[in-house]
């Protein structure tokens, strides 16, 4: 699990500004594979190719665009994107504090941690502690990677967690999924309650493992025992024995060594 900084900026509430870095709170447990060239096992890399020019395009020549008509694209620059909500791309401004109990988990999207940058440690601690004591979370809007998020900043175990939330108009209603009112069978409910009681346990996520990941690991384990791993060959330098003086010296020495053995 690598803790990589995704963004750095400021978190503010009223007139207090705290320099922070955003880091991932979740490291997906995917087993990552590398695509290799089947003929020589050298690793492959993704590059962008221009069909018109017929060649690869370096990163400096790549720009983002929006499709306004089929096959017609409007270029948008990074500066233009950043200028849309200039204050929000560098700052998470907390405007309200809320009670997290009022937030239906349906709204939760993705969690991150905020870590204080140099000079912000004390203010960070203040915010975390004051939120903990009042049992509140801060609500803010924030732009990350050109997307605007509604976020909740919570105090958890001395750290600040930032959770992105879904916008209201992105939440679908459960109304048409809900069952129509119908008679509820008491015997069925009692039986279910009984089963639940028998199956009560403590929530401990460490108990549960990812079955597919485990199977892949087992497969890799088996393969590691059966075969030697491959390595891309060195770019072919001239086949030769090496620097002539050295080779000559080595041949002499080799003769001595063999005589001794």
């Amino acid at each position: 699990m690598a803790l990589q900084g995704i963004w750095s900026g400021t978190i503010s509430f009223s007139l207090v500004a705290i320099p922070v870095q955003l880091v991932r709170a979740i490291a997906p447990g995917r087993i990552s594979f590398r695509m290799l060239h089947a003929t020589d096992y050298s690793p492959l890399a993704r590059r962008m190719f221009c069909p018109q020019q017929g060649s690869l395009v370096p990163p400096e020549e790549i720009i983002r665009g929006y499709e306004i008509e089929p096959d017609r694209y409007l270029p948008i620059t990074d500066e233009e994107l950043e200028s849309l909500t200039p204050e929000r791309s560098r700052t998470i401004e907390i405007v309200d504090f809320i009670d997290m109990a009022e937030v239906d988990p349906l709204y939760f999207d993705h969690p991150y941690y905020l870590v204080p940058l140099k000079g912000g440690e004390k203010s960070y601690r203040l915010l975390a502690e004051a939120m903990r004591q009042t049992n509140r979370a801060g609500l803010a809007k924030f732009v990350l990677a050109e997307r605007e998020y509604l976020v909740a900043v919570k105090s958890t175990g001395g750290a600040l967690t930032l959770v992105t939330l879904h916008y209201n108009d992105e939440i679908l209603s459960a109304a048409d999924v809900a069952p129509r009112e119908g008679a509820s069978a008491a015997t069925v409910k009692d039986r279910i309650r009984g089963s639940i009681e028998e199956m009560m346990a403590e929530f401990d996520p460490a108990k549960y493992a990812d079955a597919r990941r485990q199977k892949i690991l087992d497969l890799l384990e088996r393969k590691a025992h059966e075969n030697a791993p491959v390595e891309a060959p060195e770019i072919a330098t001239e086949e030769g024995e090496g620097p002539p003086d050295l080779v000559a010296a080595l041949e002499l020495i080799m003769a001595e060594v063999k005589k001794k053995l």
Partner: protein
Amino acid sequence: MAGGTIWKGVIHFKDTSVAVKLHASVREERIQFHLLHRRDQVRLHQQMICAYEKKPVPVEAQTKGFEVEEGKYLIIDPEELEQATPESSRLIEVHEFVHTAQIDPIFLERVYYLEPETASTGYGELVAALQEMGVAGICTWTMRKRSYLGALQASGTVLRLNTLRYADEVVGVNALGLQEIPVSERELQIGRDLINQLTAPFQPEKFVNEHEQKLRQLIEQKARGEKVVVLRPRTLKPTPDDELLQALEASLKKAA
């Protein structure tokens, strides 16, 4: 209106079986961008390039490898990976029940609404039982060749299936290496007062994605050929430690 049926499954534990349909609870509609070539604005395609030959490699000549030592790979066959995939079944097997309050929100990933299959028995009773007892069912299932872990919960009269993250995917707070810095009681007092002043009820409908709206406007303007003004982002100056108390007091005055 909830999205269409994503998948069908059967919740199972002991003598209880409830057939359900999964629906998405969220729909995101965001403006998508493509990558273009700056000089001719042609859309770019992605290609896999061989590090040594520096040439594109067609799909038939590509193979998957797993790095065991630096630069050394085990070659993996697609069939082998296929076999590692768990068996598909329609079963959402509940292994245990836990008090809902024990589930740390950081483990919650995505919510599916569950609709009872027509003629499904036990749905209403299960919702009522879960609701009354304040518990969630921890379950596993296989959907589209992936293994899932989830929490089955009641919300009103509807069952929700909340996918859970695996324990080893969650970074613990300890990993951040945060230091304990003392803060004065006075500063904390003002901090609390400020928070209380700024406390409001959670009203999600108040918030709209302004950025998305402005982006649409920008695109329309540019498409019409209008000139666009580019503003530069501003960075706030951090509050130095010795000015923290002042800043808090001024904020409190401002909020009052």
